[in-house]
């Protein structure tokens, strides 16, 4: 069995499962947020009763993150719905807005708070729940109805997916990031290339990546239609998890005789920085093919590209220079935001590099990645051309149907922010060029 099959079999109480089997599995963590939490709660009460209790309050995580810093009264009302429910159910894992506990983007918050435990099953009411699979667990996004069923019973039915294996070999050049790798995969297999399937990432280049960078790979599995993205745990995984939770877990690994639907192999040392052109994540082009395209805005943020290392990469390019276009910076979580103050890049804090470069820095949340209410920080309202570290560029995704969004790595977005046109990071990063000579990627050796 593959890693995904083994985790599902264990959670179904079976020795074996095969792709295509419909099984009921036990859920270890259910996560919800302010957009899908309130309707999930409505369905839970409708089906299980007004005074019903959740199946296990220690396993329910509520992280409001979507529409937080807005005057939209419906959005504000939804936070109150979560607050009332968390209080009535005495939920210990509620990260309330306006308190010290507030996190921001749930997928990054789940990692930081130690909920991503190898070998487990984590279900969330958000398509990017697949992010958690970077820690060697089965994680996938569901709708409100499925989440309400889990809330009442702790169980969900799943069809066991076939697994596609993506092997990255070689040493990652300093001008590439995990975002380039996953955009290349999505471009190669298409937005529905992994529909109903698990995407397993493997190979020395994957294990060289930090946990934050691995999360970028699994995060975008959904952009190829994947049910889940997954990476087998290694020492980096275990060290990250043990530093953040005392909860027990058991790492699971696929069998050597596991059968895969398909296998793709990439030599990362020969890959190029890439973008997804408007209006689909699989509309791939190399940066050199679209270099010079005029831009109105740059955006660095979201569960995909709003982690500390995404800002480190951005800061290394922007340090000591000024951006030529509106550049929005949105740390995924409050922990990332604090670390932006504390982390020094070439003698300056990341936060101050951004301030001096003329960036606009917003508070932690999903913000304009998905448009949102009209007063959302960084949201498009016209025919802006945007280059962004986020995950989707379908029409209207960042707010305006007339806007055009290019998806790219933080390095490419930062390089483009400096010039106002799509720019290869190699063109503006002398220090990166220098490091390139010794073939050393600063992200690879991080825990």
């Amino acid at each position, binding site marked *: 069995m593959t890693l995904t099959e083994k985790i599902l079999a264990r959670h179904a109480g079976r020795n074996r499962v095969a792709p295509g089997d*419909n099984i*009921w599995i036990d859920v270890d963590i259910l996560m919800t947020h302010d*957009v*899908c939490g*309130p*309707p999930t709660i*409505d369905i839970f009460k409708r*089906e299980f009763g007004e005074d019903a209790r959740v199946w296990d309050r220690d396993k329910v995580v509520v992280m409001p993150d*979507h*529409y937080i810093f807005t005057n*939209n009264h*419906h*959005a504000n*009302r*939804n936070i109150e719905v979560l607050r009332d429910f968390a209080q009535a159910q005495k939920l210990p894992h509620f990260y309330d807005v306006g308190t010290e506990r507030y996190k921001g983007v749930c997928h990054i918050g789940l990692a930081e708070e130690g909920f991503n435990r190898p070998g487990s099953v984590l279900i969330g*009411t*958000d*398509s990017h*729940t697949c992010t958690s699979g970077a820690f060697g667990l089965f994680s996938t*996004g*569901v*709708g*409100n*109805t*499925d989440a309400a*069923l889990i809330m*009442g*019973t702790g*169980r969900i*039915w799943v069809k066991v997916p076939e697994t596609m294996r993506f092997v990255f070999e070689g040493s990652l050049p300093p001008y590439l990031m995990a975002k380039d790798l996953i955009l290349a995969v999505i471009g190669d297999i298409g*937005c*529905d290339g992994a*529909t*109903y399937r698990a995407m397993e990432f493997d190979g020395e280049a994957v294990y060289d990546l930090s946990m934050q960078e691995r999360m970028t790979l699994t995060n975008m599995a959904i952009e190829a*239609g994947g*049910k889940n993205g997954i990476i087998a745990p290694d020492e980096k995984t275990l060290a990250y998890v043990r530093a953040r939770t005392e909860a027990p877990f058991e790492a699971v690994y696929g069998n050597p005789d596991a059968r895969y639907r398909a296998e793709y192999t990439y030599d990362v040392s020969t890959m190029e920085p890439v973008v997804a052109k408007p209006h*689909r994540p699989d509309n791939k082009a190399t940066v050199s093919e679209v270099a010079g395209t005029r831009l109105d805005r740059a955006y660095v943020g979201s569960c995909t590209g709003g982690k500390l290392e995404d800002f480190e990469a951005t800061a290394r390019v922007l340090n000591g220079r000024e951006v030529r276009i509106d550049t929005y910076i949105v740390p995924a979580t409050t922990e990332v935001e604090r670390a932006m103050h504390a982390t020094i890049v070439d003698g300056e804090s990341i936060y101050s590099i951004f301030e001096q470069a003329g960036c606009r820095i917003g508070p932690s949340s999903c913000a304009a990645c*998905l*448009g*949102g*209410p*009209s007063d959302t920080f960084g949201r498009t309202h016209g025919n802006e051309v945007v280059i962004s570290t986020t995950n*989707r560029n*379908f*029409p*209207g*995704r960042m*707010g305006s*149907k007339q806007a055009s969004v290019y998806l790219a790595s933080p390095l490419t977005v930062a390089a483009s922010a400096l010039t106002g046109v799509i720019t290869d990071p190699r063109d503006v990063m002398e220090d990166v060029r220098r490091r390139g000579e010794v073939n050393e990627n600063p992200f690879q050796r991080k825990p």
Partner: protein
Amino acid sequence: MKETIRGLAYVVGDAVDTDQIIPAEHLVYSLKKPEERRLYGRYAMSGIPTNGQGLPRGGQPFTEPDAYKSPYTIIIAGGNFGCGSSREHAPFALREAGAEAVVAESFARIFYRNAVDGGFVVPFESTVRLIDRIRTGDKLELDTSSARLTNLTTGEEYMLHPLGEVADILKAGNVFEYARRAGLIAT
């Protein structure tokens, strides 16, 4: 699930994602309160760029700007319908507007699952590319048990892929009723 679904066709292209089905700014309304939930019908499919609204002509909104209900009952779509976010608001919005079925070349997984588990719209996969053969406004008849789609306007008939095992959930109404009948959750 009805045995026969009749009504007008609304034709859209490929990769209509959930942001186009219901733009994220509208996800704030209650799905329960009647005065708010009807707004999902008003804004259903409003994220599709104008030239893609109601093929082949375009420029035909699914729901008129001042209305809460759509005149269209059966959506005909290209590949990967409902890709993108996991928002159940998407199949919910289609149902709230009055749609009863979506016939697509293929579906994104979460949309398909939400459509079935919530019992919102019946999702059929076509065996041929119907968006080139059916026009917005054609009168259609969908026989759900035989998986047969008839275009009453042109007289053409199409066999669709059968629903398979999800038919049991759709017949039960939603996944809760299905699970109760199967003894998987207490009644």
